[in-house]
């Protein structure tokens, strides 16, 4: 405990500092969303630096969670410099963290789809090179069952026939390349009776020389058939590789301009 650091003049500050984890090296700001789980998650996730709510982090959610099994989330932190990590989490989900993204040679931008189990804040926490965490998010309403209902491919029974199939394409955007790709995978949460947890747990992107340009930890709260949109600071072919919790590996190459070729099709 580093109580000594926290003995400050204002009693209110003292109360808040004591409530926060000593590991934070600072006090936790009050949650503008008023979530009952804010402090719990913040203490676990935000090690190594101060935490601020920052409107330069854009978390884009739909006006309605039409399908609680497939809720699109887009995080755009391109207004911030030196982004090292983007953690997307839903406070009230049984599996709160969806992705933990490290854009090494990539823009601080990521889109995916997540499952929601109830009305919850959905947030992005962006960590900069100086260790500070920049957080934004909003509440989204959702009916129950997004994490505790079986995936469609389990209901249909064909999940194994298509496991790991990869679809995707690349689009040039000036000096950067937009990648969109998705894997067929049930992304079982482990919260459905008689179906153990089984999910893709890492996704990596490598350039033609095999250098890693982006990597991501992926959790069971990402939607079935997980899909991702990333923007990498490179051109040329990109290798996309994923590994699941059974150790199976799925990979493929997104050719440069493959998106454009698609567009040109009649």
């Amino acid at each position, binding site marked *: 405990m580093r109580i000594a650091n926290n003995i400050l003049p204002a009693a*209110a500050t003292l*109360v*808040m500092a004591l409530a926060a984890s000593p590991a934070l090296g600072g006090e936790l700001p009050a949650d503008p969303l008023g979530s009952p789980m804010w402090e719990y998650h913040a203490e676990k996730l935000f090690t190594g630096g101060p935490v601020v709510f920052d409107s330069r982090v854009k978390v*884009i*959610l*739909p*006006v*309605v969670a*039409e*399908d609680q099994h*497939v809720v*699109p*989330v*887009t995080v755009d932190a391109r207004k911030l410099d030196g982004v090292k990590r983007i953690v997307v989490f839903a406070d009230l989900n049984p599996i709160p963290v969806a992705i933990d993204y490290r854009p090494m040679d990539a823009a601080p931008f990521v*889109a995916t*789809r997540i499952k929601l189990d109830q009305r919850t804040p959905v947030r992005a926490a962006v960590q900069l090179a100086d260790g500070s965490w920049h957080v934004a998010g909003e509440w989204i309403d959702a*009916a*129950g069952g997004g994490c505790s209902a079986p995936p469609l491919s389990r209901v249909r029974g064909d999940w194994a026939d298509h496991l*790991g*199939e*990869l*679809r*995707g*394409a690349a*689009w040039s955007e000036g000096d950067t390349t*937009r990648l*969109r*790709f*998705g894997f067929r995978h049930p992304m079982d949460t482990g919260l459905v009776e008689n179906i153990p947890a089984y999910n893709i747990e890492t996704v990596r992107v490598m350039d033609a020389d095999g250098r890693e340009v982006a990597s991501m930890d992926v959790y069971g709260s990402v939607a079935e*058939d997980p*899909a991702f*949109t990333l923007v990498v600071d490179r051109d040329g072919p990109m290798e*996309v590789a994923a590994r699941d919790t059974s150790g199976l590996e*799925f*990979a*493929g*190459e*997104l*050719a440069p301009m*493959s*998106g454009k070729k*698609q*567009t040109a*099709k009649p």
Partner: protein
Amino acid sequence: MRVSRRAIIAGLGAAGLAPVLAPALVHAEQFAGTYDPKAEEVADGIWMVRGADEPIAFSNGGAIANSVIIATDDGAVVVDPGPSLSYGRAIRALAERVTGKPVVRVYVTHLHPDHSFGAGAFDARSVHALPATRHDLERDGEGFSDALFRVLADWMKGTTVVMPQGDVTAGEVVIGGRKLRLFALDGHSSGDLAILDEATGTLIGGDLVFHDRAPATPHANLDGWLTALDRLDGVPHDLVIPGHGPLDSGNAAIAQTRDWLTWIQGMLNDAVLSGKDMSEAGATPIPERFADIKVARYELQRSVSHFYPGLEAKLLPMVGN
């Protein structure tokens, strides 16, 4: 933060009151109201009952779909009894009042609960629908019920999923001397009933036709829907009662529904092919000609959710492995 009782009492000036009481007001219990549907006679012996041009919400009790009352010599015909048991009862009372006769037939145009869930207020044998609609309700009725109870709470008191007992087949039916032509179509869902009252030329489109209210697509097959609209366009008529939105005395509603669906279809294709993610597709600007269409952004984003993963599976190339 701990706040002493003394501090709260001290703060109870005018300025202090609001923050102390605000949380209590925010969480105050809301009580369901009473439905008060209004019938407007739009043609001889035909009344339109307007729904709110909104999403299903507690504030409207789910009463968002249009219902129709038709007078015949034998009794009233009701098309789409609404979202709940108590709405169905209100529509039944209204039909009896405006026609002076009991309800002898109820048509449910398709499965969606804003149209179908009021059926419990009527003799189940008098409730007719397409076989596809009964099949859909058997599959989805319980899920709809859970979803509606969650949003509408007490408005739904006593509402159960009532299966239509009568099968509708396409063609002419005469009820109490009134000739109705029934069309068995699909596209908005797998079974969409449209009805033409031959005497007045009134076409009741169900949810194949929306008007100044953006079309909803949760069970839609867009190509099939466009085909159904062509079919309805070819039926001579003077008036169209859409499933949602105001009466159409020309051919605006069918054309507008077709225009919207064609735009949505092309926009979603383009979005997938140009590398947009779902959020970006959902933020696509809505063309000026749709500026007066209610809940356009809401339905656009719903349509993104309904179609995007399927379009990606179709349009993005398979790579690797």
